[in-house]
């Protein structure tokens, strides 16, 4: 029957229409509403929030910080994660499965617990590594970590690393080891093999991992909220404050919608570029 697939997916379609599309449309509309300290949300059409988001240097700086953090997280995840995926792939049978689980497993452990770990290691004077380093005389004052961009970047890199390893690992599975062996047999040094044979072939994996990590880093909430606190706001923690502390929902909605639109544009654009660049090789 021609209608079978539609009937089968109808329940899920209705569900998504009702509780994904309608709420998102409402959020977009909300960002055009007015708000006042005493009058609350007024359902009139105004560009006030959007003007504020685009002209106030505070928002500009905050979005710039959000994407700067996401950029460095992506860079470090790629630089550290790709070699590790390669090393994992060269391991022998029991070890490679075991370590793959050790590295990917944290993905499923609560992000709050993982971020708490970083706060325990480096947080202020009581941070365990800071305390040890100070008592050993290596450093005179604790390394600044909490409420710094460095701290957020380190913790987020750790939180999102499994996605990068996963993407590169998946690309490595498609690699034919015979090509590497052929290069070695023809006298290529290990460095040349990696640079000329392995890297070009896993590049799509690294790039798709980078897109995932960037999108998740730019929209991360719990880690920047715990490490960055109120002093170092990113887009998602700012939207949270507007919604649950200031109660200026329309302005918070504008920030959230802008984050969504910027991310979708970046992710779709980057994916197109990657696909076009590698279409000839993997088409």
């Amino acid at each position, binding site marked *: 029957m021609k209608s079978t697939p539609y009937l*089968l997916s109808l329940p899920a379609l209705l569900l998504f229409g009702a509780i994904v599309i309608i709420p998102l449309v409402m959020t977009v509309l909300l960002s055009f509403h007015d708000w006042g300290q005493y009058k609350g949300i007024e359902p009139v059409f105004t560009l006030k929030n959007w003007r504020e988001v685009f002209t106030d240097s505070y928002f500009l700086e905050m979005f710039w910080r959000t994407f700067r953090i996401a950029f460095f997280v992506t860079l470090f995840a790629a630089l550290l994660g790709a070699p590790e995926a390669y090393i994992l792939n060269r391991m022998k049978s029991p070890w490679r499965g075991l370590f793959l689980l050790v590295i*990917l497993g944290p993905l499923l*452990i609560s992000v709050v617990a993982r971020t708490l770990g970083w*706060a*325990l290691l480096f947080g202020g004077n009581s941070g365990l590594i800071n305390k040890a380093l100070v008592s050993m005389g290596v450093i005179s004052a604790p390394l600044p970590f909490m409420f710094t961009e460095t701290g957020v970047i380190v913790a987020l890199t750790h939180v999102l690393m499994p996605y990068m390893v996963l993407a590169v690992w998946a690309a490595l599975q498609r690699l034919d*080891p015979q090509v590497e062996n052929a290069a070695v047999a023809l006298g290529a040094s290990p460095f040349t093999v990696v640079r000329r044979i392995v890297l070009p072939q896993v590049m799509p994996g690294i790039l798709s991992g980078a897109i995932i990590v960037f999108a998740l880093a730019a*929209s991360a909430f719990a880690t920047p909220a715990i490490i960055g606190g109120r002093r170092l706001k990113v887009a998602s923690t700012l939207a949270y404050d507007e919604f649950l502390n200031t109660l200026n929902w329309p302005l918070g909605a504008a920030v959230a919608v802008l984050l969504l639109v910027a*991310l979708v544009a970046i992710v779709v654009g980057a994916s197109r570029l990657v696909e076009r660049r590698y279409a000839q090789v993997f088409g």
Partner: protein
Amino acid sequence: MSKNGPVALVYHTLFVIFMLAPILVVCFVAFTPEGYLSFPTDRWSLRWFYAIGRYPEFISAFWRSLWLGALSSAIAVAFSVPAALAIGRHRFRGRDAMTALFMSPLMIPHVVLGIAFLRFFTELGLGGTFVGLVLAHIVVVLPFALRLTLASAVGLDRSIEHAAISLGASDRTVLRRITLPLVLPGLISGSALAFINSFDEVTMTVFIAAPGTETLPVRMFLYIQDNIDPLVTSVSAVVIAVTVLALIALDRAYGLERLLVGRSADGR
């Protein structure tokens, strides 16, 4: 295949330490006998695990998270099985758009979903209710359930169904005795992954949970915002232990590599 050199193994060791250190430190600090954050060296104590009992909001949040995860993953699977059969076994207009829609909660920042649900549920009178939490969690875990049920629906051998039909089985019997059992592995692993993602979700839930409907990650998050003390490390250690146990069970039953990577790492 060539072996890893010593430099690679040193790098690998440092990388594994980097990945595990923050998780292990939480678990170790949870055993401190002191009243402040410290690394237990000679004396270990369960003091802070007993202390959880004096905070009923953590206990009730834990049970709420378990229920929420169980309910939302079960309902998400119920929605995704027919959708997976439609997408995986039929070619029809709008198929790609439909798949993109069902997968969209993976791409929409959870902050945006939280904001959207907060407004939506407040308007509906569901603000801060458990029903609202379940509805929101169904949507965010559905992509995980769908992806794994889809994988088993695509790999399904149609000739078995055709054989059943030619032997006189009715449509209903084919579905119940042939099709559903064949997609069962994907269904089970999909619901497990959906459960874990619901159990850990904090960003969206923090917007829509109210005092009295807070989940465990939300309760932990709000607690850490105010103060970091050994209590929250012992709660985190319990969460980590629950997740690791679930992961081990899942690994035994299905193979975690298959779940995360999509195929067995050694099966080639």
